[in-house]
């Protein structure tokens, strides 16, 4: 079934190819007074050839949009980039993407343009977002010369900030997935990981609202406050 959705999305995308308007790419929104209950958030997960953002490349992008605290299943982004020149033997084991699947991917520029349009400048959330942010920004800069800065939030910070007492036994995505008993269809598949991260985000946003956090700005403040506490603990 996932396969069918993917096909359908591919077809839909195919129609849009080549019609991007370079001059009017969406501008990034800042975390202001938008209500959480009305905002659109992008939850994203990247798969890369390795961990060094200097030499490694993005292989696949999975993303899910949360709109008004709801994940709409048709509002998803799942693609494999074409990078036939890359030697990906190192990370293939983790992701399960082989060279064959990679070459079926989209032309990189097209895919990235499409991603930018789909994201529509909305804030981006990811688990350990610094990693995804560095890779995505580098890729956008190199491929499209695009250098606007999106608002990023780290779900790995959001969760402990909202659930300070949760005993997860660790800080990884797997730890939180287990803590909330989520079922993930295919771990280390960008789309599935993005969905799991988005589900965790829903859990956190639900709780945040009960704690009186209702706007994007307030959520950002909460995260800053959490980071400061973490830094204080280090001394």
């Amino acid at each position, binding site marked *: 079934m*996932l396969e069918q959705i993917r096909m*359908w999305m591919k077809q839909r995308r195919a129609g849009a190819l080549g019609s991007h308007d370079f001059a009017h790419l969406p501008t990034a929104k800042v975390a202001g007074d938008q209500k959480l209950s009305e905002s659109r958030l992008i939850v994203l997960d990247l798969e890369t050839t390795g961990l060094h953002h200097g030499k490694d490349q993005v292989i696949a992008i999975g993303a899910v949009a949360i709109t008004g*605290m709801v*994940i709409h299943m*048709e509002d998803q982004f799942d693609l494999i980039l074409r990078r036939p020149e890359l030697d990906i033997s190192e990370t293939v084991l983790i992701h399960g993407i082989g060279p064959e699947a990679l070459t079926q991917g989209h032309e990189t520029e097209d895919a990235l343009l499409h991603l930018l349009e789909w994201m529509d400048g909305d804030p981006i959330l990811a688990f350990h977002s610094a990693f995804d942010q560095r890779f995505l920004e580098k890729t956008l800069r190199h491929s499209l010369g695009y250098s606007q800065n999106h608002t990023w939030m780290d779900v790995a910070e959001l969760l402990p900030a909202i659930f300070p007492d949760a005993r997860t036994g660790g800080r990884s995505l797997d730890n939180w997935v287990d803590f909330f008993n989520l*079922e993930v269809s295919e771990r280390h598949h960008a789309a599935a990981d993005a969905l799991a991260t988005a*589900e965790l985000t*829903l859990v956190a946003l*639900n*709780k945040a609202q009960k704690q009186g956090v209702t706007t994007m700005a307030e959520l950002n403040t909460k995260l800053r406050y959490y980071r400061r506490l973490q830094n204080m603990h280090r001394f």
Partner: protein
Amino acid sequence: MMFLREHAPFSSMDDTHLAHFAEHASLRFYADNDIVLSPEEGPVRRFYVVKQGRIRGERHNEKDGKTDTTFEITQGECFPLAALVGERPTRTLHRAAGDTFCLSIEHDAFVTLLSESDPFRDFCLRGVSSLLDQVNQRIQSGAMASIGSSNSLDTPLERYALRNPIVCSPDLPVRKAVARMHENNVGSIVITDDKRHPTGIFTLRDLRTMVAEEKGPLDTPVGQVMTKNPIYLTSHADAFEAAMLMAEHHFAHLCVVDEEHRLIGVVSERDLFSLQRVDLVNLARTIGTASHLRTLVSLRSDVSRLVDAMLAHGADSGQVVKIITTLNDVTVRRVLELNIKKNDPGIPFTWLTFGSEGRQEQTLLTDQDNGILFETPDGMTDDQVRERLLPFAETVNRELAECGFTLCKGNIMASNPKLCLSGREWDDWFIRFIDASTPQNLVYSSIFLDMRAVFGPTEPLENLYGKVLARIQKNALFQKMLAGNAMNRRPPLTMFRNFRYAPDGKKHTIDLKRQGLAPFVETVRVFALANGVEEANTLERMDRLAAKGAFDSKDANAWKEAYSLIQAIRMRAHQEMLDRGEPLSNYINPDDLNPLDRRILRESFRQAQRLQQKLEVTYQL
């Protein structure tokens, strides 16, 4: 989305319809206690499926101002069907129980699916009851594979092809009556009076006996040799009742009458079980007339095959346990008769059975719980009578063991001098039992308070049981202790509604008898005894309690259904163990069940919890 594939109705939907669902679905999260749907929101606009977690239905109880949980919806289940289809607000507050994710589609997408997907429409329109149908269908189809017939035992008799019955008046000579049977190619003739009321029946078997035993010439009026007052049923009775009556009386023919008791037709066992290889009536008759113990022993495997056949014919678990009990009764009676023939103790006695046999709830796995109630003849002491009866009982117990009724480990058997008692002694025994409520006595309550006479006169037992019931009804303390004892059997669910595994037995298994059925049996017994209900059968007790107003009739139905479903799952497991040649056990691993059965089982256990809550409230435990 793959998880949907495991659950009805998605499991039987086309890929395109599933894709339609997936494209239009959205995922929402509800924290513990969040409201998902409430009656105040107006007509329901979305169709929901639980992806993870649970939804609790809450209804406000006007009487005591408390909130009752009316249902629980777990992973893979859909809601709110009735309200959505009826385009009205829900009547029940839906609240998340624990962290819960729900997939949902909007009304438009729902309507599209409803009109395009047959399995989806059937599921939504038939609602939750179709879940239960599916379980029953599967039980039947499993057994059906070995039989290949679709006759249902629920079919009313009027739908069986009732031949225009062959009748005659009682003064017709046997020779002419037989000629008439021969012309019409039937095996029986019904003798009626001028109002067409059946007064007797004459069958080919009667003719055979008549000739063999030289009862008289063939000119004898048939009225003198017929079986008088033939058993009959009305046309509304179903095939199951007919089969049970035939099995009990060992008849192959049954008169069917209308409301005014006028003969409409005759049903033969062949009509009922035309395609069956082993048939109930014949088996019961063979057991009931067996002349040697070894014949009885060899017939036991036929009983197991019959159970398979019965399940295939659509008998529900309640019917099947009754059949097993009936056949067991016939076996016990025959063993007793054969022993009396060989070695008559010369004392009239009533053979009692206790526990599950007393409740008529035996499955293929059963052990003996029996006793003797005798009337002491003048000029003898109780001990003298016992001296004669005990050796007799010992032989009977041993022979029953050979027939497959395992010897009772607790020595609750008629050969135990403490359980071979006169009416007066039994009465004393029960007085002590009820007054001195020791822990051991309370354990025994599940055995001795469910009793029934299988052989011998029944009045002595009726007198005894009447006194016992009256005493218990007056003794609030005993009732409370019984209730406390019944609460020891907790349904196997944890606080989080997961399965609680049996402390003994293999890892990750549930004991369907002790953990699943016992909470119902024990709790219902307390209510039955406290309300003077004489029946021993758990389902009948619930019926009587509902009739007396002690149970709400809706509750009683839900509890009966839950109890029957656990029983059905247990019997299917037994049947599978037999097929694999394994010894029978009551332990099952819920992971071996399909998701549907697991849900049914969990919901059934939850009903047991509700029933126990009623006991807690009633006796303020």
